[in-house]
């Protein structure tokens, strides 16, 4: 059972990374337009040069 000393912090840490990623995504409006984001990658507008 000594493994728990490592495993529990590891699992909490990994979960914490997920939580931080979620909070980041929320703050940066990543969930505002899921349909549009899916379609936007199909555009050819900025294929030749990046969006200024």
């Amino acid at each position, binding site marked *: *059972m000594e493994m*728990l000393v490592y495993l*529990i912090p590891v*699992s*909490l840490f990994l*979960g914490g990374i*997920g*939580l931080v990623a*979620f*909070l980041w995504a*929320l703050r940066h409006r990543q*969930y*505002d*337009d*899921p*349909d*549009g984001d899916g*379609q*936007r990658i*199909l*555009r*050819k*507008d900025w294929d030749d040069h990046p969006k200024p």
Partner: protein
Amino acid sequence: MSSYAPSVSACPACVAAPAAETIAALRADKTAGLVLSLPTAHCAVCISDVERSLSAMPGVQSARVNLTQKRVSVVAENSVTADQLVSRLGAIGYPAHELDPGLLSVTETDRHGRDLLMRLGVAGFAMMNIMLLSIAVWSGAEAATRDLFHWISAAIALPTLAFSGQPFFASAWASLRARRLGMDVPISLALILASSISLYETFEGGRHAYFDAAVSLCFFLLAGRYLDYRSRAAARSAAEELAALEVPRATRFADGLESVVAVAELAVGDIIRVRPGARMPVDGIITDGESEIDRSLLTGETLPVTAAPGGLVSAGEVNLTGPLTVRVTAAGRDSSLHRMADLVAIAESAKTRYTSLADRMARAYSPAVHLLALGSFSVWLYLTGDLRLAANIAAAVLIITCPCALALAVPAVVTAASGKLFRKGLLIKDGTALERLAEVDTVVFDKTGTLTMGALEPVGLAHHDKADLRVAAALAGSSAHPLSRAMAKALDAAGIVPADVHSIREVPGSGIEGVWRNVVTRLGRAEWVGAEPVEGTATYFTLGDAPARAFAFTDQPRPGAEAAVAALAAAGTRIVLLSGDAEMPVARLARDLGIAEWRSGQRPEEKSALITEMQAQGRRVLMVGDGLNDTAALASAHVSISPASALDAARTASDIVLLGQDLSPLSDALRIAGQTRRRIKQNFALSIGYNIVAVPIALLGLATPLIAALAMSASSITVSLNALRLR
């Protein structure tokens, strides 16, 4: 969606100039955000087209399409109006409408929604971690290991509950202070009691801790709360919108001097001037000048009426062709526009507050839950004398009866239904609108702008001589009169190039005159042009000595109007057409669409009174309308729908906005509303059934954290899946 530009040809520049300066001064050179609804956008090409063409417009800084919400947000200088953006998009084939800023605050800048989502995310994270630890406990972890797991669970659960549970605690506290027992009181009690008893058990090294149940309870409830929040919109008062239509300034004429004054300063008997293209600021009598007046916003009449000295005008009407001098008979509070706003305010307050199914349920539920928990606590305390056991059982009862599924039952169904209707082109503004829509047995339609497109279009242009059409296009293009504008637009669309007509002048109240190849040509009223009037709406045209010809106009029915009316009639709904327009066009439309019951010449208060009367007879009325004259009726009806092209005030007063041009989603809406109501009731039955099974287990003291967690998740998931069955 039209704005009347002052027509310079007929109006001396001096009349228009002061007003223009005021407007320019009001609009400081700042940027503003505009949001347009884009019902037909659906793919990557749409995004590119819309963004590229809008960004290319002068003054527009950025444009971004949101495909999920079918909207485009534009950041532009204040000089750019929504109308310009809409016409630009219309030109490239995307119908668009400006949306109410109040409606947008719900999804655009929703700090509240983001806040709920964040609490939901934190609760979800904590729930999964605690569940992992709990599985070890359920599967038989003993002694020190179990205690360690309980301690870790507590370390995660307590901060999570303190953060994620805040919405419930806040609203429970608010309802307690108001001496009411809302749904949030048992929820907060369950969360607090469960976590404090579990903490105590953890201290004592006890076997049962309900941290997992408390956190997952919080998670499911937040999910329900978030869905509920999304389907409810900020309802702004329609009466305020109407007041905003009032003109702030007027040009007063006194002692031979003109001065621009605030409308509030005008008194009965003052003489004011109203330039062409401006709205009447007051009620009054015309003392000088000839013009035509557009009353469509107030009465629903499609045709402008002639205005001559002695004629009466009302606040809110638009002066079209010539400057008018008006003697004030009623201003401010007494003006007809204000009376209409009062009418709407009365209708809004008189509208019996609809108690949603969920509210009715909660009203019975909360006291029952409290009594049950208190009862089980006292009985167990009396029987065993063990305070710790009794408290444990009371906490288990509270957790098991907690309205988890109940809180999800309505929002999940309403969200699924709103999503379905949104894809069909209907925007639900109010969460209870669907429930009310399901009860509807009578539909009242307005005519102009609702069953019809609300815009007159010339018919049979192809039968006329092309040279005539070119001259007519030149004349029509120089006037702001609705018929002229419709004609100029139709001719432009037909590819007719305006002829080189010179000396064009507009004769107020009569028409437009010009000279083409040394021949005088006229476009206007029958008697002025010298033509025989024909039946229906028409404008007349002469060129030199040639006989006058008539251009006939009709107001086209909205696409899908006939299908919608037929589908509603087939479903056994009573259909009524109420219009402020004259008898003939109303009768004709009623005949064309197959509506048996119709009334013409209805004033706004008559419309509203008729709906109130029908509701008093026990009928549930759906009002579909778009004009200022419908606003009171929209507010007094059981549920109301307005097209996106309607006036702001009408859209604000209505519960559902029709985004597209097509009326046919109307019958779908009624059908889906009926399904929604059935699903909600099924969901209630499901969660009550689950309580009937689970509550006795808790009362008998047999509930373990495992049973609580299983029952809670199972019921929440069943309820959500049932909501998704909506077709």
